[in-house]
């Protein structure tokens, strides 16, 4: 049992518990907090796989940006509390049954697969060096991603304008 295996178990427990708590919490601001921990655990998984750039992007964009945006929106639109008990028992039971059956099918498929399963080795940054990420993001070769990069920047610009237009006071 190496240290990164223990780290994986800790991260898995954090992610599973906080995802469940996120959908079961009574108060919506608590649900946002649990979502924050689930997203940080995901960043930890990316670091563990060796994708350090992806982990930092996850921490910066999701944990730093999206969750803060959600908390602001929750505080701005503070209405009645979101109650799970407003649903009928049948609806909660049906939803839980559907989710558990789906989870069972997916877990069965995962355990029966024959992928090239490799052991989870110690995290190192040589899996995908930052230099390679930067060059392939701005190159037009076969492995280049310049077109989606520019498309995403145009999309973000359009999104800023649209968010201002939708949420402005009139």
């Amino acid at each position, binding site marked *: 049992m190496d240290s990164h295996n223990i780290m994986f178990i800790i991260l898995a427990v954090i992610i599973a518990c906080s995802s469940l708590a996120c959908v079961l919490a009574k108060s919506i601001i608590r649900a946002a907090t649990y979502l924050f921990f689930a997203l940080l655990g995901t960043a930890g998984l990316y670091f563990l796989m060796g994708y350090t750039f992806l982990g930092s992007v996850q921490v910066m964009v999701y944990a730093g940006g999206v969750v803060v945006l959600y908390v602001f929106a929750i505080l701005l*639109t503070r209405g009645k509390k979101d109650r799970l008990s407003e649903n009928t028992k049948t609806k909660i039971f049906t939803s839980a049954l559907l989710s558990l059956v789906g989870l069972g099918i997916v877990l069965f498929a995962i355990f029966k697969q024959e992928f090239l399963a490799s052991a989870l080795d110690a995290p190192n940054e040589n899996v995908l060096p930052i230099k390679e990420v930067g060059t392939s993001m701005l190159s037009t070769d076969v492995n280049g991603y310049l077109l989606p990069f520019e498309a995403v920047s145009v999309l973000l610009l359009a999104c800023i304008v649209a968010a201002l237009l939708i949420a402005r006071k009139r």
Partner: protein
Amino acid sequence: MIELNYILIVSAIMMFAGIFGFLTRRSTLAILLSIELMLNSADINFAVFNRMLYGQSGNTEGFFFTLFSIAITAAESAIAIAIMVNIYRLIKDTSVDKLTKMKW
């Protein structure tokens, strides 16, 4: 010994927790939180499959798919929250039961 594809189990749990929340929540913001969970588990899957199938061989399609997917998620949640704030200004409630009129 932990294998790389055990991460898929974690992401499956996250995905179905999100689906359960999507089906049971009443408030639109809580539904959006569940959608974030589902999107995030899909992102984990892209990264894990890229790591599992290509490793250090230099093929980075899953990695970049995750990267652009995170950027698109940020845009999506910004627009969705703008719509929520607007709805709250109009009818003072963001529960799905009250959102029956989709007009100005």
